[in-house]
Every structure is written in structure tokens, then in C-alpha cells.
């Protein structure tokens, strides 16, 4: 719980301008054209991108550009009290603002009459999921090989006990006085995501915005690193699927003595 009484520090011992630990991995799924997995504090989020493609449903397409269609979904087990599966008002709104933010990042005019699906699955939530999702989503779009103006980087700014703090945790979000997610295109400095609720004083608003933009630039470095790791290693070991780390060590169980890792269709193709 947030401590009442100012210079007490933060619930998890961070300094006011400190972001929680972030781990970001690009290219972790087989089927998706591009994917990214992010752990941001206790948040665990998977993003998979399909497209540009023709949608299987009837969809009003744009003749001048691609539609970026983001779907934000929370797993029922991602929060303390089980969340009822399916869409709700919150996830619809988040999906909309994320779609719009990402439309700025992709060169959508290069892909008229198509859709680009960005699917966000929140496996575990601990405040700041939309910023973490947006950060991972732009990496997944880059992993899909789409032409982009740049990545989108995001981070939330909060107000706790009248102090402006970066990247509020769940407790700070629940008991704090304000929350402002900020997302930017670092390549141009443009702001593409901005929401706020709570109370920010006339002087605080500008200060919070500056802090948020500065944090986004720090996140941008992590995004570039994730892509560098993905495509730097790709050349060295192309057969190895990038290890899906971040969940910890895994036990490998081989079902049968004969079950060597499958070699995909070599014999059949010859």
C-alpha cells in the first residue's frame, strides 16, 4: 500500500524516476508473422502480428492504407480475482488507442486494402499493461518485417502522495492520485499515446509529461536491443528457435527414445 507521508520512498524501494525491470524478446512464436514477449515488472505479455493480409471476415477496408487492428485481451488467470473471459469496455478502449498509436508507426500507405492484426495477450497483469503491450507490439511489428517509421515506446507516469513517479506499480496505481500512460515515436519525438486520470497540478502536468517522454527513450534502447539480439543471433544459429526465456528454466521431457527434435520434412522434400 502506498505510504501516506511524502519522502518515504516507493512501495517496492524504487526511486521516483526508476522503471521496473523490463525483459523483452522478439520472435518467440512459430505461427505469427512477428511476435514479442515482454516481462515488465510482474506483467507478462505476448504479442503476435499477422499481416498485411486480407481479412477472412468481411471488413470495411481502406483503399489508401492498411488497417492496423489491435486486440487487447486479458487471460482469466492474469489478475487476482478471475477475470471473466471475453471483451469488456476497458479492453475495447485499450485496443482502440493501441491500434491508433501503432498506425503511426507502420508505413500503412504501403499496404492498401489489407489489415495488420496485432494480438495482445496479457498473461499476467500488474499495472502498466497498455504501455508494456504497446512497447512489445511495435517490436512484434518490426519482427514481422513491416516497413515502419520507427518503433513506439511507452511508459506510464503516476502521482503518489503528490509526487510524480515513473511506471507506477499496482499498489501505487490503486492507491495513488493519478496515472498517465505516455507513448512516443522516438524517431520523430511525436506523442502517439496519451491518457490520464486522477489529479495533476498546473505545474505537474508538464513535468510528468517530460518524465514520461524521457522514460520512453530509455525503453526505446531496450526495444532496439531485443531486435538486435533476435537478428544478430539469427545468422549464427538459424535452426535454433530463439529460446523463450523469461519464464525460467524448463524441463525437457522426451516422450519416446526415438523422439529426436523433429527435422522438418527433409526426407519428404527430397
Amino acid at each position, binding site marked *: 500500500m502506498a505510504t501516506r507521508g511524502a519522502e518515504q520512498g516507493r512501495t517496492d524501494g524504487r526511486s521516483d524516476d526508476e522503471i521496473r525491470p523490463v525483459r523483452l524478446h522478439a520472435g518467440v512464436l512459430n505461427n*505469427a508473422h512477428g511476435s514479442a514477449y515482454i516481462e515488465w515488472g510482474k506483467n507478462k505479455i505476448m504479442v503476435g502480428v499477422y499481416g498485411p493480409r486480407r481479412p477472412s471476415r468481411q471488413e470495411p477496408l481502406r483503399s489508401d492504407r492498411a488497417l492496423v487492428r489491435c486486440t487487447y485481451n486479458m487471460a482469466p488467470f492474469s489478475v487476482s480475482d478471475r477475470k471473466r473471459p471475453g471483451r469488456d469496455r476497458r479492453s475495447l478502449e485499450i485496443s482502440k488507442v493501441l491500434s491508433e498509436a501503432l498506425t503511426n508507426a507502420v508505413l500503412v500507405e504501403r499496404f492498401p486494402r489489407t489489415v495488420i492484426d496485432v494480438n495482445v495477450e496479457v498473461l499476467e497483469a500488474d499495472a502498466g499493461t497498455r504501455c508494456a503491450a504497446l512497447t512489445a507490439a511495435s517490436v512484434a511489428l518490426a519482427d514481422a518485417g513491416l516497413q515502419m517509421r520507427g518503433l513506439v515506446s511507452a511508459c506510464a507516469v503516476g502521482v503518489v502522495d503528490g509526487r510524480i513517479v515513473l511506471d507506477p506499480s499496482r499498489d501505487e496505481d490503486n492507491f495513488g492520485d493519478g496515472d498517465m500512460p505516455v507513448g512516443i515515436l522516438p524517431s520523430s519525438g511525436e506523442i502517439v499515446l496519451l491518457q490520464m486520470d486522477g489529479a495533476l497540478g498546473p505545474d505537474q502536468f508538464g513535468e510528468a509529461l517530460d518524465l514520461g517522454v524521457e522514460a520512453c527513450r530509455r525503453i526505446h534502447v531496450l526495444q532496439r536491443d531485443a531486435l538486435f539480439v533476435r537478428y544478430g543471433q539469427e545468422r549464427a544459429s538459424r535452426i535454433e528457435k530463439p529460446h523463450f526465456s523469461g519464464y525460467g*528454466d524448463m524441463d525437457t521431457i522426451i516422450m*519416446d527414445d526415438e523422439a529426436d527434435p523433429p527435422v522438418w520434412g527433409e526426407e*519428404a522434400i527430397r
Partner: protein
Amino acid sequence: MSRDPETIMRSQMVRDLIGTGRRRDDRSLGQMRPLVVETDVIAQADGSARVRLGGTELVVGAKLMPSSPYPDHPDEGVMHTGIRLSPLASPSFDRDMDAEATEIARVVDRGIRHSGMIDMKHLCISPGERVWGLYLDIHVLDHDGNLFDASTLGIVLSLRGLAFPNSRFGMGEDRPVPLGEMPVTLTFAKVAGELILDPTAEEEGVSDGRITMTIDPRGWVRAVQLGGCGHFTLEEVKRAHQLARSSAEVVRGSLR
């Protein structure tokens, strides 16, 4: 699925190969793909597991919430199984998947329920008033066939770490949920007249039907589902039963 020449030729190749007793990934017809598992992956869940069966990957989260019993079973907990076929898991999930999802969830639910791995009476808090609701939610992240078997594996593994979250609801200390023996689900696809275990998405795509069986440790059948557009002869169903019984032992042995 589109019927362009490449798809047709590829389908024919998969069928022909299986007709000669071989598969595209070099498995024998009765062999499962490599299985990779990890438990306790979601801190917010009361039990969780991540399973990768070949190219199929999913996360299962089990949650216990205080709930009301059904009037006809006042001293038993309630259980709900759900599955999300997230559009990120496959290009073919870009449409309404409700029917497919419901079938998988219900078949997997029946196998778990009837195997007695969880005794519903253990989930009773106060008869007729308060019981635990056990929510098993499956989240598919990558789809390469055979979601039935992977889902049961994920649920079984998530249950192994399951604890009553008493402290969260002011009911004393957390304690482990007593468990019975685990069921195993095995799915065979019928391709070129052969029964193949643990089909990939490509193999499912060319199959003439599928049969899913959940087997308990005594070798008893606990759930069956025939699916896909196709039919089986009496001999084929009996053969699937024999194969399922022997394969269940192999799977059970590897998970001990």
C-alpha cells in the same frame, strides 16, 4: 482452407507419406512430439503450467474462488474449463472460433472431471453454502495441431501445484489440494487409412476424422470424442482404444 495447386499437392504428399508409414517430421505413426513443460509460471494463478508439444504451445492457469454449490450436489465444489484460441496462435484463428473452442474445453473438462483427479468433495467449504469454484483456463499461444492432448497435459500439470488460497480469502493458511491420479488424453487422426498419434495442424488438415480418448491410470476410458469430417470403422475405433491405452502408459511414465 484454400484449394490452390500447392495446397493440393502438399496434402497429397502428406497423405502418400503416411501411407508408407512415415511422417513429415520423421516420427513413427504412434509417436508423440517432444514435450516441454514448465510449472508455476503465473504468480496470480493458484496453479499454472506452460506446455509445448512440438509446435503447439499453451499456458494453463487454475484459479480457486469461493462459490455456491449446485443444489443437487451441495457438498461438492464446482469446476469450469475454458479455452481461448487467441488469434495470435494461428492465421486460421482470424474468425469466430467459438464452436471449436467449446468442443475442446468440454471434451477436456469431461476427461479431467471423470478421472477423479480432483475429488469435488474436497472442494467443499461449508455444505450447501460455500464451496470452491475451480476455474481452469487454457490460453493457446501457438497452434500446430492436437490441442486436446496438450490442454489435458497443461491442466494436469497446473493442478499438480494447486493450493487452496485460504489466506487470500481470510480463511487461514494456504494448503495443497489433494489430488488423485492423472488422466492422459490421446488424439489420433485418420489419414490414408492409418491412425496417427498427436497430429500436427497440417496432418489434421488432410485427415479423414479424428478420435480423442482420455485414459485414467487403471486403463479405463474416461472421455471419448469423434470429430472432424470423417467416419471410423468398428475395427478402427477398437484399434484406437488399444493404441490409446499403450500410449497413455508412455506419457504417464515420462511425466512421473
